[in-house]
Structure formats: C-alpha cells, structure tokens
C-alpha cells in the first residue's frame, strides 16, 4: 500500500478534514511537513498555535501539541507559551483575516519585539470559514459576498507591514510554488526572532469563483501570471517599469537581530547554568565526567529533583530518576 510520507505527522483519527476541495491549505501543509521532516526537529518540543479560520484548523490535524485559540489572538497566546518555556519551538498558523485584521495589533507587536515565533500566514484574500467576505487583503475591484460591486478599499501588504514592524525574516510565495514555500519554512525555522512566511493561497470555493477563477487551477495560473520574484522586480523597477499589477514574491527580509528570548537573557541563562553545574561537578573528587551524559541530563533540567541531584554531582541517581520518570 502506498502511504503518504507525511502521514506520521498527522492525527490520522481526525481525518477526513473539513477543508474544501481545491483548497490551498493542503499545499501549504504538505510543504510545512516536508520542511519538518527535513529539519529532524525534536517533535516533542514543536508546538503549533492558531487562531480562528480555515488555516487555523490545521493544528488540529497535526500530531503535535497544539493550541487552537480565539480569533486573532494566536500570536499573543504564542508569546506567552514561548517565553514561559523557551525550549519549545513555536509555529503559528494563521490567515489574513485572523492576523492582519482582528489580530493586527498582536501581529505588529510580535514583529516589533522579535519574539521567537515562526508564523505561517495563509493569505487567501477572504474570510473562507464564514463563506467569502472581503478581508484586509482582498485586492481592489475583486468581488466577495460583502463587496458585491468590487472592493473599494486598498489592501494591506502583510509582508511589508512585517518588515516595517521589525520581523527578522519575511518570505512571500504563492501556492503555485510549493517547493519555495518549503524552502522558506526550512530556512525560517532555523533562525531566531519573528519569522513570517506569507503564502498567497488559492480559495476557489469562497473567493475565486466570484472572480472568474472557478477552479484551483485557474487560481494557480493567476498566481503564476501575477507574481514576480523580488530579484526580477528590482531589475525592472530600475528600468522604471510599472509593476503595480504584480505581487512581489521571494525572500523579502533576512535580518539577524536578536530574538526576544535572547534579549531576555533566556538563551544565555541556560548556557550559564550548564557551565555552573559542570564547574561544581569538576570540584568533586573521583567523578568521571561523561560529557554526553551530562548534556543529556541537562536537557531535563526543568525538573527540580533532577537539578538538585545534578548539583550535588549525583549523576547516576539523576539518570535513574529520569529513567523511572520516562517509564511512568
């Protein structure tokens, strides 16, 4: 039997999912899970947080710890989660309505404080879950159930806002380039600070069909024709060409500012603690220092009992205690 390689990352018992036929979220989840399998991350420490909307349903299908929160607030919940336990790798999955509209304030401040969160924003230009109303990213003149004569407001450029607010890494791609999405997630994951991967995602059911793009293929074709890479855009821009009909995609920001956890000293504190314990253990006579073992134990430093034993140099006891806990 052919099995999908990503199935081990899914809560199989929850399938089938509630998303529509031809939804772009499938492409994005596929890219995300491929990136995760390439990264060889510690699955126990990977946490997904989401708000409300189609994209926010994704963590409910992923076999990781997941917090499905209230509309717009995913980044605020994730901020608390990350600061309270910096060992967790936090990925927020959100959408244009969730993050740019109702959660706009949290978005600005998460980027400003450069909190160590990787955010994947599924930008489908509409409120899909409620049936296709205009969102802050609905392009002008495009129709939705609440803009039946075409949207009149100018849309928000989510990536540009993230850049201005101080995000460490910003990349934008459309679902027409899944490989690039995967690569962007892969790179973003390895950085610290606030990282945003914005994905223009096709939604033929709630959005495309009101705008003469009835199928997923129609929408993907539209993305191909209307996106332009940042490199090309820069070149053409120099020549003074009008690029207003295009969305610029690619790696838009790649900075190396310190993330909030580092600013808090949480990263250094852990390193310091490691050194302190090593020093204390060296002081004791007759104890051979098995570096690997120590490092393994240090990972579990959050347990006060293990910490106490470690500080006294009782490595064997500490290890036995951990074994016992694991068996439990």
């Amino acid at each position, binding site marked *: 039997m052919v099995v999908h390689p990503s199935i081990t990352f899914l*809560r199989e*018992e*929850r399938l089938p999912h509630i998303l529509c036929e031809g939804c772009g979220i499938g492409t994005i989840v596929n890219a995300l899970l491929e990136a995760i399998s390439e990264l060889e991350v510690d*699955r*126990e*420490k990977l*946490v997904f*947080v989401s708000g409300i909307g189609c994209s926010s349903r994704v*963590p*409910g299908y992923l*076999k*990781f*710890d*997941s*917090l*499905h*929160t*209230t509309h717009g*607030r995913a980044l*605020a*919940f*994730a*901020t*608390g*989660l*990350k*600061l*309270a*336990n910096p*060992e*967790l790798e936090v990925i927020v999955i959100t959408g244009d309505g969730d993050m740019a509209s109702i959660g706009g*304030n*949290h978005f*600005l*401040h998460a980027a400003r404080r450069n909190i160590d969160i990787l955010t994947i924003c599924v930008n489908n230009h509409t409120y899909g879950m409620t049936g296709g109303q205009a969102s802050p990213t609905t392009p002008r003149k495009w129709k939705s159930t609440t803009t039946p004569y075409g949207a009149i407001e100018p849309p928000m450029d989510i990536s540009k806002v993230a850049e201005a607010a101080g995000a460490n890494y910003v990349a934008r791609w459309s679902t027409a380039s899944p490989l690039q999405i995967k690569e962007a997630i892969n790179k973003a994951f390895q950085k610290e600070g606030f990282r945003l991967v914005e994905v223009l995602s096709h939604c033929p059911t709630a959005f495309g069909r009101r705008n003469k793009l009835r199928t997923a293929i129609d929408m993907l074709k539209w993305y191909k024709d209307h996106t332009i890479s940042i490199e090309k855009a820069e070149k053409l821009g120099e020549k003074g060409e009008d690029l207003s009909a295009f969305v610029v995609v690619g790696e838009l920001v790649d900075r190396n500012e310190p993330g909030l956890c580092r600013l*808090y000293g949480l990263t250094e*504190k852990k390193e310091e603690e490691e050194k302190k314990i090593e020093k204390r253990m060296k002081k004791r006579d007759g104890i051979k220092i098995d570096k690997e073992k120590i490092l393994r134990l240090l990972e579990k430093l*959050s347990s006060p009992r293990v910490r106490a034993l470690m500080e006294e140099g009782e490595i064997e006891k500490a290890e036995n205690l951990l074994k016992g806990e694991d068996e*439990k």
Partner: protein
Amino acid sequence: MKGKLFLQGNIACAEGAIAAGMRFFAGYPITPSTEVAEWLAKRLPKLNCIYQQMEDEIASISAIIGARWAGTKSMTATSGPGFSLMMENLGYAAMTETPIVVVNVQRSGPSTGQPTLTASGDILQAMHGSHGDYEVILLSPNSVQEMFDLTVEAFNLSERYRVPVLLMSDEVVGHMRENVYLPEKVESYDAPLSEKGIDYFKADPETLVPEMQVFGKGYNVHVTGLTHDERGYPNTNEQDVHSKLVRRLCKKIIDNAEEIVNYELSYGEDADAIVIVYGAVSRSAMETVLKLRKKGRKVGLLRLITLNPLPEKLIRKLTRHAIPIVIEMNLGQIKKEIERISKRKIYFYGKIGGELPSPEEIEEFMMRVMKW
C-alpha cells in the same frame, strides 16, 4: 519577601502570586492596578521569571493562558476597561479549563468612568461577562493581608478545579497600606499531570475535574475553544458532547461549592438583622455592627470572601429569621444574588461615585430601615 512588613495592597497581591509559584506575568498598565505590574517588573527578573508587558489586555490574558500550557503558573492584573477586553478569552480559559488568575482592582464604570476611584461594579460581569454558560471562582479581599492570602488561594483554587479564578479587589484595598505578615512558605497546590496517551479532558467522576497536561512532553495534546470531546478534539455537531462538556464545566464549581466557599460570620446566632457585605465595604460595616452591638442592637455581619460560588445554605439559614441588609459599591449586584437565594425583600444601600460608604452612613441607613 517575608516577615512583618508595611505594604500596599497591590504589592501584597504581587508577592502572593510569587509565593504561590507564579513564574509568568503579562499585563498592560491601567489605574488602579498598575502597581501589581510595576512591582512584578522589578521582582520577577531577579527570580529568573518573566514579566512581559503586552500590547493590550486581550494579549495579556492570551499570553498567560499560553504560558500555563507551557507549564508555568501565570497571572495578569487589570481594572474595568481592561477587564472588559479580557472577557472573550476568560471564556476560552473556562472552556479549555486553563488554571489562570486574573486580578481586577475595580474602579468606577461603565466605560472609562472614574479611573482613580473605587467601586465594585464588575461583579456580575466577572460571573457572566463572557458568552455562553460557564462558572468561574470570584474572591473578594478586604485587607492588604488578604490581597496576599487570597492571591495564594486564587492560584490553589485555579489549579485544583482547573478554572480561571478572579481576584475582585477594588481601588481602596489595592492602594491601601497596612501591616502584613508574609510567611516564609505558603501551601501551594499544583494541578496533577495526567499520563501519556489518555483522554486529556476526561474528568474524574467524583471531582468532575480532569488532570492537567502541558506542552513539550510528546503527548500531542490538542487544546481548543471549540466544543471538544474527552480527547480534546473538536466535535461541534453532536448535542450530547456539548451538553456533557458545558454542564460539567458548571457542575465542577457548583457541586464543589462547599469546599470552595469562604466567608466570615460575626454575631450570626441571635441576629435580627444580618448585614451582607464584601471587599472594602466590610471594613466600614464591621465598625457599624460593633457600635450597634454595644448599643444592644441584635445585628450580625456576613462577609462574603467567595463571591462565586456563594454560601447559599448559610444565606438561606441566616435570612430565615434575620432581615437581610446588603451594602455594596454598585447598584445592587450581589443583592440580586441574595434576593434569589433568600427569596426575601432585601434592604439595600448602594453607594457609587467613588467613595467608600462610611460607618456613620451605614449606621444611619440601618437605624432607618430597622426603625430602631
């Protein structure tokens, strides 16, 4: 900090949280609760803990719920307008059974009202402010000492019943300075953690409370504000799943009320009139009661410490013979509850405008209604 000290109420509250094991505070400045945040901003970094100022109160309550699922006891403090903003996620915490503590140092509302003056007008909002049916625990301190003690109690109750606990203080108690005694160690309770692979939201049939779980242990916990089954997975179509869940969320507080409820009863036995009060007002009322007792008037005082749930049996028993008199700094919020419980006419004195009712005012009111 420990031993005999002279502290402000808000600071005592902050110290109570530290003593109870809080390691994460998120907040947003708002009068008259700001000192809680200011004090913790100073104290927490020294203890290797996190103080995080958020962009608004919605973010504050979100962050502390997130922090609790990371395995850290957490708290936020606010006042009226900020409390209103927190309502949606208060419901989320109740639905997801996240143990958190929210301190509300009350000021006069509605809206911006009187930011620097006292009131207790947020009681019904605290009970019913988020949409849907749910129960949370409300505590009401009346002294600086209780700002410390009840903050500890709030954490313990929230952990025991996996429920948000609201410390409903007010500007007078929050800003007052008094002698307090901070013990070296307090009794603190941590919600027990469940085992891997079980239904993480399956409640104990006796207590109706499920064991807690935290992220980062490979248990693949799923937490959602949607109606969920015992595994934590959304199930929004079946009537039974919703009914069972929401009824349990309410019952776990109502059925355990006797263990949760805390009050102080003075001169209850022979009272012709029983004064029912809570928070700062109880200080004035106690003085009045002592004075009237000296004059030979048979008056008792019931000080409510838990405002939800209420000591319903006791209230019924007391009000069977004694005339119920309720004094509040609002237009009759707990009065409505006492009316419902006692089914008697309540003599009510409500003072709003930002000033604590004085003992003389209360005495005059009582002399009038009791025709003494």
